[in-house]
């Protein structure tokens, strides 16, 4: 890159209580460049970008924007409006969409004057159409966002940022919920847009796309910038060493003799209110000592399938047997009792009760257990003991057992759920997108735990969009598309990718 800088972050720091989330970070971004920002969960990537966008007020440091003629202007800190006006667009890690509005309203929000009595929707639609063509990102504009899939919502988020005529685009884990194909397409289009002077900072935990699409890589660890390398010189090992200061843990999968079936689903059909909430004639079985991978692009029925097996939705027809016994569908407690451990897709919403403490969340599925209660009264000391045992066993790090669970970082919330599920020695583990948004270390932990459960004799269903994960962990692979499930005969990326897109035979 021989071009000039467009953005200079100078010594930005931010603390939350005793946590130093960003510690004097300085960074430059050059015109037309794609800069990847890497680091473990909790390294401070989002915090740094939130300061750039004005969501957080830095404790110290300054930000300068360099305009076309080379003049550096300080950016007013802590004010999103100033950042937007300076041409910065941000795609947030967690959706910032109003679900009661359609995509068009979400995109137009804030870009029109409040005193105007008429809205110019047709002009906006024309502009969005052009952005869709340029970026290759398409999403329905006239459906309430609450009814879109996560993939569609992600595209709306990106379109929303591009709509503001940005010249610096920040993408905070934009591909966490996209399929590999969608992600590649997105980056190809972004690369094309950089030719016209767009500069991009993106955050990702997926090293493959970082290496393929960035020009430069900056690595954060514990709130500090620990390195900057050009992507040409980088490889996965180098980056991993920078990120965690050590080689990543590798896992090995042993060949095991599979046992008898723990879960049999026979001709399960669910007619939901929309296509993505429906399943037709699903049959599958999972055996002891086996991981069944279910690959598929989100929105093809994974969520209903997982909900059906967890007893959260009622099936129209079909049978579910656990351990050879027919179970009542539509009865979650019955299903937990039957030995199913669930790692839900949306860990914040369905995996924990955010307002309750870490300790309470650990025991929430076995309140009847003699370990934690007697005659209906909870034994506080036993719960605390249990919690501190599990926290060290499963390496759950956070502000302590009495803190609200929502304060934990994403990776630690997932470890809390794993601890709860594994301690119940489940016959079947239902893991839905278990490593989404986790850093390499945390993702490897999850993978190791699943393999360990397989070793111990559990059956595991692994629902994931991440083909690498499916390929490295599964004994058998099925692909879900449009509410139908098919067995994959060969295990290679191409065939699976095509099946996920509903193409191959």
């Amino acid at each position, binding site marked *: 890159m021989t071009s000039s800088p467009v953005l200079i972050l100078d010594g930005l720091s931010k603390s939350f209580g005793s946590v130093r989330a960003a510690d004097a970070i300085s960074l430059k971004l050059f015109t037309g460049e794609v800069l990847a920002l890497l680091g473990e969960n909790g390294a401070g990537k989002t915090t740094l970008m*939130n300061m750039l*966008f*004005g*969501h*957080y*007020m830095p404790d110290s440091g300054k930000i300068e924007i360099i305009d076309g003629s080379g003049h550096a202007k300080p950016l007013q800190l802590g*004010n*999103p*409006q100033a*950042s*937007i*006006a300076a041409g910065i667009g*941000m795609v*947030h890690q*967690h959706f*910032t*969409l*109003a*679900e*009661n*509005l359609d995509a068009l*309203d*979400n995109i*137009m*929000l*804030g*870009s*029109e*004057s*409040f005193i*105007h*009595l*008429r*809205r110019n929707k047709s002009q906006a639609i024309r502009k969005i159409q052009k952005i869709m063509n340029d970026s290759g990102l398409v999403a329905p504009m006239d459906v309430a966002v609450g009814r879109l899939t996560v993939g569609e919502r992600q595209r709306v988020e990106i379109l*929303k940022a591009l709509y503001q005529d940005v010249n610096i685009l920040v993408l905070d884990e934009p591909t966490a919920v996209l399929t590999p194909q969608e992600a590649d397409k997105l980056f190809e289009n972004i690369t094309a847009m950089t030719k016209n002077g767009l500069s991009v900072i993106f955050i990702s935990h997926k090293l493959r796309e970082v290496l393929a699409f960035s020009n430069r890589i900056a690595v954060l660890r514990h709130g500090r910038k620990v390195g900057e390398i050009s992507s040409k010189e980088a490889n996965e090992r180098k980056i991993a060493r920078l990120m965690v200061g050590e080689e990543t843990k590798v896992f090995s999968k042993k060949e095991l003799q599979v046992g008898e079936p723990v879960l049999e689903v026979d001709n399960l059909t669910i007619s939901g209110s929309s296509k993505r909430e429906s399943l037709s004639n699903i049959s599958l079985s999972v055996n002891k000592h086996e991981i069944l991978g279910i690959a598929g692009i989100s929105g093809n029925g994974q969520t209903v399938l997982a909900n059906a097996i967890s007893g959260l939705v009622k099936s129209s027809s079909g049978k579910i047997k656990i351990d050879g016994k027919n179970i009542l569908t539509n009865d979650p407690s019955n299903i937990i009792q039957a030995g199913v451990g669930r790692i839900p897709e949306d860990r914040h919403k369905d995996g924990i009760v955010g307002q309750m403490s870490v300790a309470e969340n650990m025991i929430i599925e076995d309140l009847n257990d003699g370990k934690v209660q007697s005659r209906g009264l909870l034994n506080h000391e036993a719960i605390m003991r249990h919690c501190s045992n599990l926290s060290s066993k499963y390496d759950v790090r956070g502000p302590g057992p009495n803190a609200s669970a*929502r*304060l934990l970082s994403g990776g630690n919330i997932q470890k809390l759920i794993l601890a709860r599920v594994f301690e119940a020695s489940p016959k079947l583990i239902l893991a839905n997108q278990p490593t989404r948004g986790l850093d390499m270390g945390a993702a490897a932990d999850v993978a190791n735990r699943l393999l360990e459960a397989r070793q111990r004799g559990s059956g595991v269903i692994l629902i994931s969009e991440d083909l690498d994960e499916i390929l490295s962990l599964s004994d058998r692979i099925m692909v879900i598309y449009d509410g139908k499930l098919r067995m994959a005969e060969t295990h290679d990326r191409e065939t699976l990718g095509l099946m996920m897109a509903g193409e191959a035979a």
Partner: protein
Amino acid sequence: MIEIFQILLTESFWAASLRIATPLIFGVLGALICEKSGVLNLGIEGIFVAGAMAGWMAVWLGTGLWGGVVVAAIAGGFFGLIHAILTVTLGLSQHVSGLGVTLFATSVSYFSYRTALPKVSSPPRIEPFRPLEIPILSELPFIGTVLFQQTALTWLALFMVGLVWYVMNRTGLGVAIKAVGDNPNSVDAQGLSVYGLRIGAIVVGSALMALGGAFLTMSAFDAFFFGMVNGRGWICIALVIFASWKPGKALLGALLFGAFDALQVRMQTEVGAKVPSQVFLAAPYVLSIVALVIAARRAEYPRALLTPWFKGQR
């Protein structure tokens, strides 16, 4: 049964329904605007009292009727601002703050009334809004009496239904209010002020509520009494849910309640001898609860209702 049908056919019944509905229309619209932005305003009952008292007092002091309406709205906006600072800026419990505002606004109103008129036994009267007799239209049979003999405030209420609908559904401001009540982060991420939108919505909503109170002292009656609001504010809180936060349905709900109430009064005189009058007095409330139970099962609450938002917090 026969009696009910006879009542339903009278002009005076329908005219009374609309008249009884008017303060509720103001109140529901006000509550709707607050709740759409994500803040429950239980100050409504007290804001009704404040509007009734302030409007009437202003007219009595000689501002003229429309001057009184403006003063009532300002009084409502003032108490709304207190609620907004407590719940939006400070993020305190919306229930506690709302009930506090109701107690405070009610007491302040009674106190000012007593201080201004220490020795009065029968409340002084003002010259209230007269029915707007519109030439020709008022002469029409039925419709003429029902619609065209209402006061200007009833017309203002009906106009407000349209205005609130238009702003909510056809303007950028409405989109922003709906967004801030669903996910404040969506608004923040677009560089708009969550605090500004919410505080604005509460102040405007509260001003509308106060007009509901003003209608009581300046149109329905011609004086201020203690206890005259009599739960109308609470009814509005229920009606917003019945209306699932839609202005059109809010009008319908208010009219429905008005009709129950008008019917109840007439039934008392028709069959009052056989049935205790309390049964009739309770009837509109019981029917409202039934209607609410049916409607509320499908109600989709603004997602961020009751949840405070702070800048720079997860």
